[in-house]
C-alpha cells in the first residue's frame, strides 16, 4: 500500500516482541507531555534539590571549601540516614505535583473518546494497557525520586570510600523501596481516579482532595481521641511512617498536645502502614480492572 500505488496490501515484515509493546504508550505520551514548556521547566526544577544535596555532599568532603566558608558543614548537616530521608521526602512532594499534572488525563481521555476498543482490538491486553499507562507516570517519577536518590548515594560512596558504601548499603535499599512505594501508590491512585472521572480537571481535583482531606481528618481524629491512629487514613502520614521505618528513624511514641493537655501517644506500627498501603493498591487495581474494558456492559 505505497503512497503512490493506492491499493490494499497486507503487512509481511517483522513484528516487535509482545513484551515490549506496553512501552509504546509512554513513548507516545511523553511527546505530548513535554510539548508543554511550562511542564518541562517544572520537571527540570524537580532536579534542583538533587543539585543542592550534591553540592552539600561535595562541600562535606572538600577541605578547602570548608576552610573558605568557615562553616563546619559536617556538624551542621551530617550525611546520614536523615539526610537521605529528607531528600526522599522532598522528592516525594515533587512526585505528587508531577502526578497531579500528568496522571489524571491518561485514562480519562481514552474513556471520554471511546479509544479503549481501538487499543484492545489489537494484540494488546487490558493488563498491558494499564501497565503502559502506569509506566508513563512511573518512569517519570522514577527519574525524580529513587534514581537521583541512588545517584546521591553513589556520589557520597565515591567520596567517602568503599567502607562507607558497604556499611550503608541498607540506605540505598531504603531510598529505593521508600520512593518506589510512594510512586507506585501515586501512580495507582492517579490512574484509578482517571478511570473513574472522565473530566481531566475533576480528576486532578479529586487526586488533590484524596491527598488533603484525609490528612485533615486524620489530625481531627488525633486531636479528638488523643491518639495517633488517625494517621492510618492519611496518605502522606502513611508515606512518612513507611519511609521512617525504612530509614530507621521511626519513633513508636511521640509527644502529642491535645485539648486535654500534653501526653505521649503511640504511633500505629509500621506493619500497619504497609498493610494500608497494600490495601489501597489492591482496591485501586480492582477498580481499574472493572473500569478498563473495551465496552461497558449494562446488564
Amino acid at each position, binding site marked *: 500500500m505505497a503512497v503512490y500505488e493506492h491499493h*490494499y496490501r*497486507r503487512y509481511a*515484515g517483522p*513484528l516487535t516482541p509482545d513484551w515490549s509493546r506496553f512501552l509504546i504508550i509512554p513513548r*507516545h505520551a511523553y511527546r505530548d507531555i513535554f510539548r508543554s514548556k511550562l511542564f518541562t521547566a517544572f520537571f527540570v526544577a524537580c532536579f534542583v534539590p538533587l543539585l543542592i544535596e550534591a553540592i552539600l555532599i561535595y562541600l562535606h568532603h572538600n577541605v578547602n571549601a570548608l576552610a573558605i566558608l568557615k562553616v563546619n558543614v559536617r556538624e551542621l548537616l551530617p550525611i546520614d540516614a536523615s539526610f537521605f530521608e529528607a531528600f526522599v521526602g522532598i522528592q516525594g512532594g515533587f512526585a505528587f505535583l508531577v502526578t497531579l499534572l500528568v496522571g489524571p488525563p491518561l485514562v480519562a*481521555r481514552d474513556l471520554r473518546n471511546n*479509544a479503549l476498543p*481501538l487499543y484492545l482490538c*489489537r*494484540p494488546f491486553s487490558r493488563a498491558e494497557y494499564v501497565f503502559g499507562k502506569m509506566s508513563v507516570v512511573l518512569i517519570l517519577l522514577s527519574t525524580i525520586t529513587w534514581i537521583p536518590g541512588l545517584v546521591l548515594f553513589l556520589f557520597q560512596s565515591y567520596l567517602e570510600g568503599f567502607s562507607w558504601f558497604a556499611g550503608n548499603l541498607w540506605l540505598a535499599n531504603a531510598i529505593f523501596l521508600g520512593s518506589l512505594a510512594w510512586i507506585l501508590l501515586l501512580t495507582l491512585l492517579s490512574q484509578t481516579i482517571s478511570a473513574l472521572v472522565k473530566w481531566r480537571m475533576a480528576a486532578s481535583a479529586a487526586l488533590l482532595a484524596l491527598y488533603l482531606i484525609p490528612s485533615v481528618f486524620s489530625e481531627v481524629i488525633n486531636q479528638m481521641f488523643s491518639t495517633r491512629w488517625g494517621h492510618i487514613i492519611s496518605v502522606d502520614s502513611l508515606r512518612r511512617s513507611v519511609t521512617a521505618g525504612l530509614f530507621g528513624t521511626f519513633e513508636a511514641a511521640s509527644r502529642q498536645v491535645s485539648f486535654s493537655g500534653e501526653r505521649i501517644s503511640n504511633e500505629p506500627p509500621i506493619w500497619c502502614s504497609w498493610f494500608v498501603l497494600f490495601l489501597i493498591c489492591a482496591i485501586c487495581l480492582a477498580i481499574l480492572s472493572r473500569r478498563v474494558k473495551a465496552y461497558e456492559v449494562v446488564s
Partner: protein
Amino acid sequence: MVAALQEDQQIALQALVQTPVIELDGLSVRFGRRPILQDLRGQLRGRAIGLLGPNGAGKTTLIHTLLGFHPPASGTARIFGQDVINETKEIRSIIGYMPERDAYIAKMSCVHFVRLMAELSGIPSEAALERAHEALFYVGLGEARYRNLDTYSLGMKQLAKLAQAIVHGPRLIFLDEPTNGLDPPARLRMIKLIREIRDSGQANIVISSHLLRDVEECCEEILILKDGRIATYCNLEEERKANRKFLVLETRGDQAAFTKAIAELGCEYAITSDHRVKVVLQEGAEIRDLYRIAAAQNLQIRRLNFKRDSLEDIFLKAMENGNGGL
C-alpha cells in the same frame, strides 16, 4: 523433494481456502440475565459478509464477541479456525476493527494516531509511520493527515477509523456501521474503498449496517439477526447468479381461490398484502395461464411486473418469519 513440498503447500492452501472465515458453534452471549445472542450456528465464507438486523438484534454484540470483548455464555466461535475464547491474541493480530461510535485518541494528529495503532499491532516504529502515511493516502486523508483529530469532521473521523483498521494489513476487517453520518459523496467513497479492499482478495470484510443498500452493494453473504437469533442467511452472490425472477401481481377479487389455482399449476407464490401476490413461474407455465386462471376465478389483474428478490424483500421476509438458519 520439490514435488513433496509443492504437494504440502497445495494441501495447506486448500485447507486455508476451506477454512471458514467465521464459524459460529452454538454461540450464546448474556449480559447479566438478559440473553443477547442465542445459539448462533453456521459458517460464513464470503469475501464480504453483511450483518443485518433491527436495532438491538445483536449485530454489534456479535462483532464484540468475535473480537473477544464479551465472553460467550455458552458455545464458541472461530475466526479462520482460531477459537475466540482461547486464541484471542492470535485472532486480534489478524483482524482490524472500525467501531461504530466516535473513537479516537485526543490531542493527536491523525498520522500520529494511525502510527500508534500500527505500533500496537506489532509493527516496528519506522514501518508503522510509513504504513500510516500510506493508509491515510489510501482512504483519502493524505492532505489532512497532520491535522489534529479533534478538528476533523464526522466524515473525516470515519475515514481515520478506517485507516487505523487497515494500517496493519489485517486478514479480516470488521466494519461497524461504516457509512454512519456520511454525506452521499463520502458514502460513495467509503463503499468504493470497501469494494476495493474486498476485490483485492487480501482481506475478508464483515460489515454491520442498518443500510440495506450499503450491504447489498458490498456483500456476498448476508446474515440477518433478529432478537439475538439468526433470522436468515442468504448468499447474495448465488442469488445473483441464479438470476431468479418473479412476478408481482396487483389484484382485485378472491385472492385465495386464485393462489390455490396457481399452486395447482405448480407455481410458487407468496401473498404480500391483500391485493398483492408474488408468483414464481415454473417451467412450462406462461403469463397467459395466469390471466386464464384469473378470468376463471373472476379476479382482476390490475398490474403485473417482473421483479428480482431485493435485499429489502429478504430482510422484510426475515423480520416476518425470523426462523431462518444456515
